[in-house]
């Protein structure tokens, strides 16, 4: 991949920034032998970077938080989902923050949103702006919600830690089932090439419960599938550090290590000698 020389003598701060961004994009394109991926953002079009800074995910989530507090939001626990009745403002913010899926009903004034367990627990426990209602009609405490989630999904502590780890960093995290993984993580605004991740949440130690990629054919399969949908396989290793799973406060002491698994193609990389030498460690 040849680097384009940036044009010189262009006046104006905005154009220079665009050139810089363009250079970053060009550099970014020669990153991938799979060794160490560069994490520079690759923005589509002029002004997108500025637009994203003006509209950060953290701010949107903060707005969602306020809105849910204001509306005294309650969610109904139904198997592995939490169902919430949302007014116009809450609906809008759920969509913007990419939480839940809206359910189409004939009701016009209110929309119903369906949250995954991880999404619901994040709003209830991490952000404390939602409360869950059990089948008996009572409000569930965080501990009760935790036990409930574990009973529905034994690997919940692992998957939740992974989910919240990424959400805390303001990444959008959605279900990855269609891609054969646990989650899809991507940056907010706008859609970027090669900056999306297909995420697997695994325990660091040997855990029968949630084991994936235990044999090579699984690695081949998952990496190939991720590649064919332009996503990088990201494994989040969750270490419970022997804290157990008795209460959600255990999560605080869990640690997460991130690892990408990528396929290296020797036919492609040998031409790009400079990039392999210059790759960041």
């Amino acid at each position, binding site marked *: 991949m040849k680097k384009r020389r940036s044009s010189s003598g262009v006046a104006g701060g905005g154009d220079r920034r665009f050139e810089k961004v363009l250079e970053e994009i060009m550099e970014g394109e020669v990153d991938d032998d799979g060794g160490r991926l560069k994490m520079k953002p690759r923005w589509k079009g002029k002004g997108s970077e500025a637009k994203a800074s003006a509209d950060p995910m953290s701010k949107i989530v903060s707005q969602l938080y306020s809105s849910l507090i204001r509306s005294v939001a309650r969610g109904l626990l139904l198997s592995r989902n939490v169902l919430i009745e949302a007014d116009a403002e809450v609906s809008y913010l759920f969509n913007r923050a990419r939480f839940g899926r809206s359910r189409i009903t004939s009701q016009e004034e209110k929309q119903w949103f369906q949250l995954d367990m991880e999404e619901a627990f994040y709003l209830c426990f991490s952000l404390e702006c939602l409360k869950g209602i059990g089948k008996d009609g009572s409000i569930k405490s965080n501990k009760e919600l935790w036990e409930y989630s574990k009973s529905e999904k034994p690997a919940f502590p692992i998957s939740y830690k992974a989910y919240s780890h990424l959400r805390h960093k303001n990444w959008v995290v959605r279900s990855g089932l269609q891609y054969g993984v646990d989650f899809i993580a991507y940056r907010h605004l706008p859609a970027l090439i090669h900056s999306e991740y297909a995420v697997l949440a695994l325990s660091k130690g040997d855990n029968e419960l949630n084991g994936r990629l235990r044999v090579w054919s*699984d690695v081949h399969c998952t990496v190939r599938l991720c590649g064919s949908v332009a996503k990088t396989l990201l*494994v989040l290793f969750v270490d419970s550090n022997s804290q157990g799973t008795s209460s959600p406060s255990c999560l605080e002491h869990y640690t997460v290590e991130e690892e990408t*698994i*990528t396929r290296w193609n*020797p*036919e492609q990389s040998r031409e790009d000698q400079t990039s392999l030498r210059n790759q960041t460690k």
Partner: protein
Amino acid sequence: MGSDDWGSCSDNEDYLQDRNEDDDEEDCYSSGFLSKLQFRKDISKARWVDDLAMAEVVEKKGKMWVTMGIVRNGNTYCSIEETLFLIEIGALHVLDGNDIHLSLKELYEKLSNGKSGCYWELFEVYKHLRSLGYVVGRHGIPWSVKGQQIKSGTCSLEGSQESNEMLEMEPKDENSVIELFNNMQITDVSPAFNVYLPNSKFRKSSPGDPSFVLYISRCSPPSRVEIEALERKHGAIPFKFCHVENGHVSFFSFAKTELPVLP
């Protein structure tokens, strides 16, 4: 929400390329390809030394010797995988101790007896990368050592590769040697090769750091714990894993990363 469209993925190219890869492998054995290689005018000669499980080069022809074979005291020696590769492409004739020509069959047999520190997958990987122009050498075995005769067991995999390196170097104090041996037990996997990019500037006398160290996995993919140990061990030098099955060689990188905190 997210890009679900399959049509726009550049990685589809990657997938298609893999399919072409399979076709290429078949072509490798077509007569056209072989005819280019088989009838070389310049065929080097080497003598197989059973004690070393290596071939001592007797007559060098061609430029490939810049990146092939290890040098000890002015002599060049080829590992079994290098020897087999060169014979397969018709660039080397090998004789035994009595100056009788050794056939390819006999050399495959030598590979199978295990004394040369090589096994079939190691050879397949070696051949795959060499054919693409990469410079490949056994990890832990120096390319060139002056003033020292070659040691028996240089290529043996009985110890770890590091033990060979230790034997070749200046004697260190006892503690560091013990530490080195202790550290070798950390992982079950031992590194197979140092791989360098196709590079006409490669010199055995100063090869520099490899582009990456290659591990060959035969059983399961490495765990996070194993990867961590390797990250500590190799530091700034990248490492990769390769998996060989049914003649297919695939390479994977397991790289620690940290997604940035977004605004």
